[in-house]
């Protein structure tokens, strides 16, 4: 269940770029990402992981031909249906001028040769900026299991069929077990908008979740009088 799959552009590998590619793959792997080599845009489409790409690292070669190919790949990766963001370009110090007028084609660049920890720092910052900050993929709380990747929830191995908002509310409560949230905070953070009668909506969804949990587990979501709700395994209120 890899949350972060990176496409590493290889083009038609030559002696000049090969060591750089090996180094990129090693760096990504060390940081816990999954690196997959792609030769061109067709590869990128064909090898797309089920969860989609988290981004791409593109070493821009040194020969004219390799450079053109790399920038073409960058442009194409922006055009496909499932746009690749972020794109990190690896470029030699003497080629920096190539970056000008290509702002749309990449999100950040790093000079070659690079320092692994710099690349890791840039990648995690880029992931954060594109809203992919790595969080826990599985949230587990007693009998309750949430898979953030597949949006699936289960209770004692029984699948829970939830609506989108029920799922979002449950996930929000589950990442901070035991913490009490007011209706206003829940409305703001889960629904994310101002809405008349909104606090009432939170009550409605909590009641629906409890109904879906069944009597035995309804207590997982606890009402804290005149404050709000929390998700907690303990039966004490």
């Amino acid at each position, binding site marked *: 269940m890899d949350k972060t799959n990176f496409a590493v552009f290889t083009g038609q590998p030559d002696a000049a770029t090969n060591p750089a590619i090996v180094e990129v793959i090693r760096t990504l792997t060390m940081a816990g990402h999954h690196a997959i080599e792609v030769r061109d845009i067709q590869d990128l489409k064909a090898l797309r992981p089920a969860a989609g790409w988290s981004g791409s690292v593109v070493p821009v070669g040194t020969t004219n031909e390799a450079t053109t190919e790399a920038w073409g790949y960058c442009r194409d990766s922006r055009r496909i249906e499932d746009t690749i963001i972020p794109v990190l370009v690896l470029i030699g110090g003497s080629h920096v001028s190539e970056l000008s007028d290509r702002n749309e084609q990449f999100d950040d660049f790093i000079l070659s040769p690079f320092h692994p920890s710099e690349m890791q720092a840039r990648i995690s910052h880029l992931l954060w900026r594109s809203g992919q900050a790595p969080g826990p993929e599985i949230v587990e709380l007693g009998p309750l299991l949430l898979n953030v990747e597949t949006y699936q929830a289960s209770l004692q191995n029984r699948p829970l069929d939830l609506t989108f908002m029920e799922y979002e509310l449950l996930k929000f409560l589950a990442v901070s077990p035991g913490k009490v949230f007011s209706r206003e905070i829940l409305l703001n953070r889960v629904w994310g908008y101002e809405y*008349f009668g909104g606090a009432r909506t939170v009550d409605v969804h909590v009641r629906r979740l409890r*109904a879906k949990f069944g009597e035995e587990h309804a207590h997982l979501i606890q009402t804290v009088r005149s404050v709000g709700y929390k998700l907690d395994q303990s039966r004490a209120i």
Partner: protein
Amino acid sequence: MEPQFDYVLKAVEERQVRLIRLWFTDVLGQLKSVAISPAELDSAFEEGVHFDGSAIDGFSRVQESDVIAKPDPSTFELMPWADGGSTGRMFCDISNPDGTAFSGDPRHILKRNLREAEANGYALFVAPEMEFFYFADGNPNHQPELLDSGSFFDLTTSDVASDLRRRTISVLEAMSIPVEYSFHEDSPSQHEIDLRYTDALTMADQIMTFRLVVRELALERDRYASFMPKPIAGIQGSGMHLHLSLFGEHGNAFHDPEAEYGLSEVGRAFTAGLLRHAREITAVTNQLVNSYKRLVNGFEAPVWISWAQQNRSALVRVPVTRVDKPSSTRIEYRSPDPSCNPYLAFSVLVAAGMKGITEGYELPGELKQNLNELSASEAGKLGVSALPASLAEALDEMERSELVQEALGDHIFEWFLRNKRSEWADYKAHVSPWELQRYLPSW
């Protein structure tokens, strides 16, 4: 892609859903469905599903019969009882080919009326009491056959009906429809399931789901569930009392701890609006010829347009609520029956209530006496008028009503009146067994 779409696509994949039913409602309140396969879901979200609306009651005129159903991803649920749980459903909004909302779509009409209330700062919340009968079968050629002779709150645990009701509730709860109470009503074979409040649009969707679930689960056990308002003369009919409240920025707008019965000025004005326009909106809340056989004296159905705190003969009741629960202050509107189109019924109710608020209607005095045996002349003295006594009378009132025309829009207003006038004409020309028994011997 919107996360809501993605969520549904993932759920369909993960839960191995094989069929997705796209639901919508015709003007008369009948549920309609178009089924698609998971492969078609993507394009259904992007472009909607085209279909010919001319076959659907109140939808299109022949010249412009193409309409598009766009599924609302927030309503996606599995149907746990159907095909081993491999079928999902979503409610749809109906639009014209040019993308504008289709004026014959009841769900759109309700959304428009709720938006108007929201523009005034209020969201309508509704909790219905759903009453219905279980019969041995649905054959219309003989008197409906009752399943038991139980009465109010009877605990006949072994009987089929309680078993059915229990299974129904568990399916409802699995479909995000929490149940507040359920019990055996006071007529034999009659049951009541009270749904937990939610916003009016969701509740209208839930009532559509509710009616289907109750009927299909009964059929599964070879029984027939009926929402007909008065299936058997001489015993209670089935109503759909509606508990209504408005929520605004500061919570329940109906609540005022200082006021009589905790009912705020806003609540009083809303109630005044319902009472003043009650005669005009009754054709929509009680849309069948048969609906008016329930609204008669001697049963727990309202006949007179009045309000009270504790009076089962009043049209509007203000239930007693706990002082420490301001969110539960509400009013109960008691005339609607479960055969109505919930989208249209909520539309005219919110329009009437909001009119009371925006125009500042005064609420008339409370009438505490039992109005069941009230004669016309006594009513006149009290200044109380009656609800329409027949569908024909209700249609006359509706036809004169600007409020109802505005709330429903010209398309539905026009179509509804014509359709119902024709229903009344059929009924009027019919000679019933009652007439033969009464008149044939002497004339």
